[in-house]
């Protein structure tokens, strides 16, 4: 499964969310992550996020697609982080 994860979280907790997401997905822009992830791993990520999230204030959106090829991505302007496995 290929997902796009976007969050809007109070400053106090935003750092925690950033660090958590970095472990599972690729950072592409502030508060935006994307990447290949399994159903279970995504559940794990969300379970961990629930430990600190305040659901009255914060919001996390996840866009799922079956695989990367079903997601058309267009970049206008700067691409902040190129996703490449050749470093």
């Amino acid at each position: 499964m290929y997902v796009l994860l976007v969050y809007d979280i109070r400053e106090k907790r935003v750092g925690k969310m950033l660090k958590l997401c970095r472990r599972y997905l690729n950072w592409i822009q502030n508060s935006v992550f994307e990447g290949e992830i399994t159903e279970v791993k995504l559940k794990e990520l969300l379970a961990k996020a629930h430990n600190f999230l305040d659901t009255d204030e914060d919001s996390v959106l996840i866009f799922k697609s079956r695989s990367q090829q079903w997601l058309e991505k267009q970049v206008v302007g700067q691409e902040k982080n190129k996703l490449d496995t050749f470093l």
Partner: protein
Amino acid sequence: MRKTYYLFNPGRLSRKDNTLQYTAYDEQGLPGQVKYLPIMDVADLYVFGSLDANSSLYNFLGKNGVSVHFFDYYEHYTGSFMAKEYLLAGKLQVQQTQHYTSKTKRIALARKFVEGSAFNLLKNLRYYQSRGRDVAAHIDQIEGYVAALPFANAVPELMGLEGNIRQTYYSGFDRLVPTDYAFGTRTTQPPQNELNALMSFGNMLCYSACLSQIYHTQLNPTISFLHEPGTRRFSLALDLAEIFKPLLVDRLIFRVLNKREIRPNDFVQDLGRCVLKEPAKKTVVRVFEERLKETIQHRSLKRSVSYQHLIKLECYKLTKHLMQMEEYKPFKAWW
């Protein structure tokens, strides 16, 4: 599927916030942009450039089951950091050892590896034969050697036949690649011309790919059947690679040379040794990676399977054979 990361640039990899942080160095050795690699998405790391790292990073990689393969300046495989074995199976280990010590059991398996390898490389030759390259003589000669396989009674004899098959096969290479390249004979340590350099590099990628897959099964990578299990090397990966080299490496060589993705000036000749230049290495690795990810429709599984997964399936078949559940049949390309 977790991804393989290839580190070419010099840089520092460290553990940060329970994930991997990679800082590339520029020409002056100054740290550049920081990148985070999602640890949950990393299968293994191939390190070609110089990498700074500390033990806490390796502890972290070990805990997450990520292995690191190292290659020296001359792109030889120098070794691996393997994460702690997580699939232990005493019963299989005992069986694997018994299949090695019993002469009849060992030769039966070793023969299968050579058979599989010969079948796949003949497939390559036949493909080019149908494309109007004259390799009929080579095919006949190899078929002769294959016919002799069932009569080989000792492993060195098998290795000899295998050597003959390869030699004949390589002598046909000159007709399959552009005329700028002459193969001559197979030279290693160091490879002396372009084709040999490309082949050494490709084989090494193939060995590491096999080793990575063996690691994810319960097989012990040090006990092999065709190659003699030495010390300090994972010889089972060499056995498995025999079967996959014609598919993964040789076809890659034909592709990059015939499509001119690599040209004669992508090599450096010095001191009787030939090596690939940096951008050419990247091209080869990229093509190899693409090939591993490519999928084919599997006949008996009735679903599409990547080349990488084919290697793992091969390990499973081997396991079944060792546990005496099903006789091992080497993988033979059917397309």
